[in-house]
């Protein structure tokens, strides 16, 4: 029992409540927002120390013993995800101060942002499959409102697609949960992991596995279920785009990793095509995403398609189903959240300077804002997998895992997609940064300094922090890779998880 385990959920809830109570004052809300995120980061770090030193931590909420009550479980994977979610929380908290207008603040932007983070953290921590559904709903409701907040026409268009497809996915998820409960009589994930291998009707177990693949696949935007993502993620303010693009789809990936390592393993699904399907899906997701990005000329749309493409890598790592593959997938998730969110944040600064997201109307950023160009270059090269940045190690471990399994085709595809990613990033670089200054630019272009009057530094500092982290992870990858390896080993040896929740078997 570790009572602190509830803090990653409770702190955002408290912050949201306070922000709602003081909603009249924007100034107070901003401070509450940033402080709440910092407190969350602190709590996660304390928990991280516990998990790192003493192994998996468990909390039975309300003192109801597992498998009857709701259990919160923190293993290394959950902690890594919580850590990155708290870091992103702080970053977005700071970025929002300047990026979010008064109108949105008045209509509850900050409470919603914290509720969203609460949903994300809850999904990472929960050890109960129905509770996971509940956290997904919390996340969905908050994200729907965040997408639609502001009421512009294209925002509502994007939000509607988003909410319908996600509600549909939740419905499928619920079917899967019902079938699981019917088969085993339990919803606790550790208990399910014990009972699923004993189910005689293995066909039904495979069916449920596929239901979960479709449901979480929609949420994490895998091929062929990704179409809603590029249609909605470029519509809201940049701070929201960044947290959606960086964090939200990865919750789906986390859920996939969790269920396909804990519940639907070789022991419960008695056929080998499960991982083949994942492999194909991963490959197609990579290729289709990157091709979609190559064909677009809008800054955030390109980034949105790249989210899809990068998800493919993570699914591929999961499909390998080895410690190395899972380690690569987990590292990839962490690196990708940093790099992708940072690119979104940079697109926001570029838009503020040039007044548009259309690449054709952008240019001259390198000439007038060389520092911003450097920041972009770091994130873009990290995304494409250039050494020595974080993306290189992520791709290297995945490629190594693929080669050791002698899966040459998919490994080749992964490398090729990396090159195509570089192509898209070069496209942005050539037009927005190296291109000539367009004729119609806002009057302040070139005159407004990044640091100084105009307060642009509130936007630039978060970007600098993430860029610094990308370099740090890149140059000093070993400890981070080791943490991911610990997480992967815990995932593969399910008995540790089961014992932590249900006690010695």
């Amino acid at each position, binding site marked *: *029992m570790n*009572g602190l385990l*509830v803090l990653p959920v*409770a702190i955002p*809830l*408290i912050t*949201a*409540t306070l922000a*709602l*109570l003081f*909603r009249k004052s924007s100034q107070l809300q901003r401070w509450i927002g940033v402080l709440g995120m910092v407190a969350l980061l602190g709590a996660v770090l304390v928990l991280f120390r516990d998990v790192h030193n003493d192994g998996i931590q468990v*909390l*039975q*909420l*309300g*003192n109801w013993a597992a498998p009857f009550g709701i259990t919160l479980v923190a293993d290394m994977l959950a902690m890594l995800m919580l850590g990155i979610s708290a870091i992103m929380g702080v970053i977005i908290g700071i970025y929002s101060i300047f990026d979010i207008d008064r109108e949105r603040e008045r209509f*509850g932007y900050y409470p919603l942002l914290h509720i969203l983070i609460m949903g994300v953290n809850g999904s990472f921590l929960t050890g109960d499959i129905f509770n996971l559904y509940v956290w997904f709903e919390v996340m969905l409701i908050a994200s729907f409102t965040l997408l639609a907040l502001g009421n512009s026409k294209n925002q509502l268009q994007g939000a509607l697609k988003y909410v319908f497809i996600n509600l549909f996915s939740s419905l499928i998820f619920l079917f899967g949960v019902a079938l699981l409960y019917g088969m085993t009589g339990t919803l606790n994930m550790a208990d399910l992991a014990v009972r699923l291998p004993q189910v005689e009707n293995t066909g039904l177990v495979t069916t449920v596995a596929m239901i979960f693949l479709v449901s979480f696949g929609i949420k994490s935007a895998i091929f062929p279920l990704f179409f809603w993502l590029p249609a909605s993620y470029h519509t809201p303010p940049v701070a929201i785009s960044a947290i959606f693009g960086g964090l939200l789809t990865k919750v789906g990936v986390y859920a996939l990793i969790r269920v396909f390592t804990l519940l639907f393993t070789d022991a419960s699904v008695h056929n080998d095509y499960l991982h083949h399907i994942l492999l194909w899906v991963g490959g197609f997701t990579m290729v289709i995403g990157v091709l979609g990005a190559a064909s677009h000329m809008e800054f955030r749309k390109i980034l949105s398609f790249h989210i899809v493409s990068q998800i493919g890598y993570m699914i591929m790592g999961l499909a390998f189903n080895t410690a190395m593959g899972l380690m690569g997938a987990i590292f990839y998730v962490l690196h990708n959240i940093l790099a992708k969110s940072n690119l979104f944040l940079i697109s926001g600064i570029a838009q503020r300077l040039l007044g548009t997201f259309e690449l054709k109307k952008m240019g001259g950023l390198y000439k007038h804002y060389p520092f911003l160009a450097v920041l972009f270059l770091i994130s873009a090269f990290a995304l494409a997998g250039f050494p020595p940045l974080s993306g290189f190690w992520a791709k290297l471990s995945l490629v190594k895992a693929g080669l050791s399994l002698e899966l040459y085709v998919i490994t080749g595809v992964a490398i090729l997609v990396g090159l195509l990613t570089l192509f898209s990033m070069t496209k942005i670089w050539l037009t927005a940064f190296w291109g000539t200054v367009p004729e119609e630019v806002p009057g302040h272009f070139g005159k407004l300094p990044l640091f100084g009057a105009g307060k642009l530094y509130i936007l630039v500092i978060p970007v600098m922090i993430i860029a610094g982290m990308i370099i740090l992870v890149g140059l000093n990858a070993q400890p981070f890779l080791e943490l991911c390896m610990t997480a992967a080993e815990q995932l593969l040896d399910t008995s540790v998880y089961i014992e932590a929740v249900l006690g010695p078997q």
Partner: protein
Amino acid sequence: MKSLILHTATRLMIGVLVLFSLFLFFRGHDEPGGGFIGGLVGAGAFTLYAIAFGTEATRKVLRIHPITLIAYGLLSLVVSGLIPMFMAEPFLTGKWLFIEWGAFDTKLSTPLLFDIGVYLCVVGFIVTVIFSLEEE
């Protein structure tokens, strides 16, 4: 809406509805009822008032802004969850306080606090929705 029947009936009904919602709320401790359903009936009372006398009048009757009501509700939920944590027990563990007055023994508990939070959230939420629909 200008209707003498509705106005008179609403004046009579609103007290009964609020009382009934509180009855449902407290009954929910051991029998069907509770914060959610009580909150719905309570919100129903204010909705009826809003239809009969308009949203401005209802805001005056309600005194507190409905979104503030949601905030207080959330606060109550959070506090009920945190109380057991100060006694070194997991979040949301039910804690009880028995007070014996002789004739009316009282049971106070953190689940009650939780339910009050649910009640306030439901009333606040529904009234917010109704107000924004009425004012469109």
